[in-house]
């Protein structure tokens, strides 16, 4: 029986690869977008301005406090109420961007906060403006603190892309699910899906560990 299923699984392998490609696409694009937005928000949040701090705080709480599966439903099915009608793929990207940038914002703000106040003061003392202080002095140093958890967060985000399958994006997880419907050998199918996820995530975990060790020095 198992070999019978195995044959069919091999037959479907190209289908798995297309799922892998979709997962990679969603992950790659959304990671770039999340990083850009996350950095901007993080810098604003590290600022003392009451308005930004709290506004972004509320946003971060909403994005972190609810399950991603609920968020993606809201983006896909409730945003149309407000005139934002999106196809599954862009909707998945948008939901990922909203959720991911909240997490990255926290990491960036944390990294900036970890830089000794003296560095800000030294830069201020020589007359640099706030933006110059951030750009020349703070961010280059904060990157060291930010990078390892950032890469770690990338791994979490890549794994979160598995949830976009609920709005009909044919990603790796959905391919797995559809396949189980055809080949009722869940163990094998999900081992394969797991392996493919592992193939994307693990190199990043290694990178994160490496960065952590390197930055610690």
């Amino acid at each position, binding site marked *: 029986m198992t070999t019978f299923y195995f044959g069919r699984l091999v037959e479907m392998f190209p289908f798995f690869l297309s799922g892998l490609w979709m997962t990679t696409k969603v992950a790659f694009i959304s990671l770039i977008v999340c990083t850009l937005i996350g950095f901007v928000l993080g810098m604003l949040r590290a600022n003392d301005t009451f308005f930004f701090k709290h506004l972004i705080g509320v946003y971060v709480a909403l994005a972190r*406090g609810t399950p991603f599966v609920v968020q993606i439903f809201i983006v896909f099915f409730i945003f149309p109420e407000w005139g934002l009608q999106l196809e599954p793929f862009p909707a998945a990207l948008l939901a990922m961007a909203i959720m991911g940038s909240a997490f990255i914002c926290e990491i960036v703000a944390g990294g900036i906060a970890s830089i000794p106040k003296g560095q800000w003061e030294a830069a201020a003392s020589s007359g640099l403006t706030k933006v110059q202080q951030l750009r020349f002095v703070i961010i280059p140093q904060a990157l060291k603190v930010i990078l390892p958890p950032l890469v770690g967060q990338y791994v979490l985000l890549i794994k*979160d892309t598995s949830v976009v399958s609920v709005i009909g994006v044919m990603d790796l997880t959905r391919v797995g699910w559809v396949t189980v419907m055809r080949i009722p050998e*869940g163990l094998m199918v999900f081992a394969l899906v797991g392996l493919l996820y592992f193939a994307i995530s693990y190199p990043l975990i290694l990178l994160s560990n490496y960065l952590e060790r390197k930055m610690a020095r």
Partner: protein
Amino acid sequence: MLANFNFMVIFEYLPLFLSGLKSTFLISLVTLVLALITGIIACSMRISGIKTLQYPAIAYIEIMRSTPLLIQIYFLYFGLPSLGIVVPEIQTGIIALMLNSGAYIAEILRAGIKSVDQGQIEAGLSSGLNYVQRMRFIILPQALGVTVPPLLGQAIVMVKDTALLSLISVAELTRSGQTMTSERFMPAEAFLTVAFFYMCIYFCLKYLADWSQRKLIFREVY
């Protein structure tokens, strides 16, 4: 969907949501305790310095961290029966969550232990304390203090992760929303209510995390 948001139906389904909330809470609690135990064991193995314990622990942690929880749940759900082990969905879900969170907790604990100042360990060495005594009196009390906030952070993640158990027919908060949707066709009401309850749990845990963080910093500075 929002224009005629129907609060009455939410009240009608409130008992269902509350029972969902209760099981989410209980599942989370049980899982947290089990995951802590798993994490402690994995962490001890990982820092033991004994290769035959260390490598399995590393493999376990890395595999858990690099595959989606959803896939792990399905894997166990379909996999355990093929091994002849039949456990109900809820236990399958708890086992999956426990293994997943346990790996993260192991890493949090390890970071906590590493965070204890090397100098303090040397101070302990200098006064003749042995390994177990140093662990017990110097390292663990401080490491635990440092790890409480990230552990609560992991608890937040875990509570949200229990939502995925709805996919294997565990009746919890998210499933309550799904049930209401399929009976009454009111997805907006259902999902916003679900989100609301998750936010409540989030704020409680977040408050605890911030409080413990402040407590901790307070102790260091003062």
